[in-house]
């Protein structure tokens, strides 16, 4: 297991910090420029969600390195209000996207794997993984 690195998200500035850390890790693992930019954008989306809707949370990165695969895993955890209708937030054109293709469906597209768990009143946990091609 690799050591985890986490960034707390409270202020908008923390979004930049999370991007920076995530991009550095992605670069080290060997992602190309395009994928680095996509990973940073995915981090932005997840961090913004925490900043806007949960106020407090963190994003943790982990390097995955096994025989077949090399990649980056990111987990965004918050103790916010949770998501009432998950299928709705995963729908294109809904809420945060505003036609920009952003929001959680955007994250899902930018990354290779995506998993979401949310409990109303307790919080949300989103895990996303991208593999080096």
């Amino acid at each position, binding site marked *: 297991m690799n050591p985890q690195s986490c960034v707390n998200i409270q202020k908008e500035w923390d979004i930049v910090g999370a991007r920076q850390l995530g991009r550095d890790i992605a670069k080290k693992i060997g992602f190309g420029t*395009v994928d680095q930019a996509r990973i940073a954008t995915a981090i932005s989306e997840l961090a913004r969600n925490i900043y806007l809707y949960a106020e407090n949370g963190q994003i943790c990165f982990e390097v995955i390195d096994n025989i077949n695969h090399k990649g980056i895993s990111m987990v965004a955890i918050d103790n916010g209000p949770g998501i009432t209708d998950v299928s709705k937030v995963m729908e294109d054109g809904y809420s945060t996207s505003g036609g*920009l293709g952003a929001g959680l469906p955007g994250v899902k*597209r930018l990354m290779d794997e995506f998993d979401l768990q949310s409990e109303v009143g307790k919080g949300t946990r989103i895990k996303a993984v991208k593999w080096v091609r």
Partner: protein
Amino acid sequence: MDNMIKVDAATYKDLMKHYIETQDEQSLYGVEQVSKAFIKNNILPEEIVNLHIQALAELYPDMLEDFQHSMDFLLEAMIAYGMAHQEYQTLREKQNALKSEISVAASMQKTLLGTKKPTIEGLDIGVISVPAHQMNGDYHHFVKGKDGSLGIAVADVIGKGIPAALCMSMIKYAMDSYPEESMTPKAILKNLNRVVERNVDPSMFITMFYAQYIPASNILQYSSAGHEPGFYYNASTDSFTEIESKGLVLGVSPATEYNQYELKVNQGDMVILLTDGVTECRDGERFIETDEILDVIKLYSHLPSQEMVTQVYKHFEKLQDFELRDDFTLLILKREV
């Protein structure tokens, strides 16, 4: 897809190199083709910028570092465009799926609401019904009684599209359940009124004109539930009159009774039934006048009924720049000479 990028990447680089050297139009035409291939293969803008960066680096290994950074900056700026593009793509696929679902529904409606134009000796019948969108909120129906009489219903749901179409299926099945011969127009409307009042949302109204033609006596009996009045053409005076008919729209009040009227149809006379999609045709922003409709009908009155309705429809379709605002139904009965 990766292979595709590689092929086009090589072309892109060659074209760019050639263009930098010559600035000729041919290279620009070439890149237009490459660009189209990219779009076809869902290549995102950031990937194209990346391609450009790689091509530059190969052509100019000593490229200024500041310039390189600026290109990376451009790549970052493209990411959001790529995301938006992918979302549009998905939404477009969804839209196509919806469209094809609606077209299946529309053809199902056609089958469900289908009615066969009957053949009655001495009577020439023409009918056309065209929806403004895919689903039709107008409805017409023929019932040929065992006694030789012909029942004709023309109806219009206030509203268009899918809700209107669903509503019409209900009307049709209610009508199918009536024992045909025993029912007079006023009794049919009274019955349907109850069905609509009980089953349809109060915000939805249906108008209907129901007529029964008795070939033996050439009498047309009819009742109307708030429907757009039709016209009677009197051959002996060569003039049109509006068919008088009063009655409340279906579904408003449960205990409505309907009046029944009678009309004698002589040789060469015509009965014209329609929906407001005909009378509310527009010429630009202006609603057309009744006389304009009658003039057009008259213009084609020498033709068999079916050709008449088709020509009249074509006339108004053209007048409205081939864009119907409402469902259009026109039915003409002509007593042959």
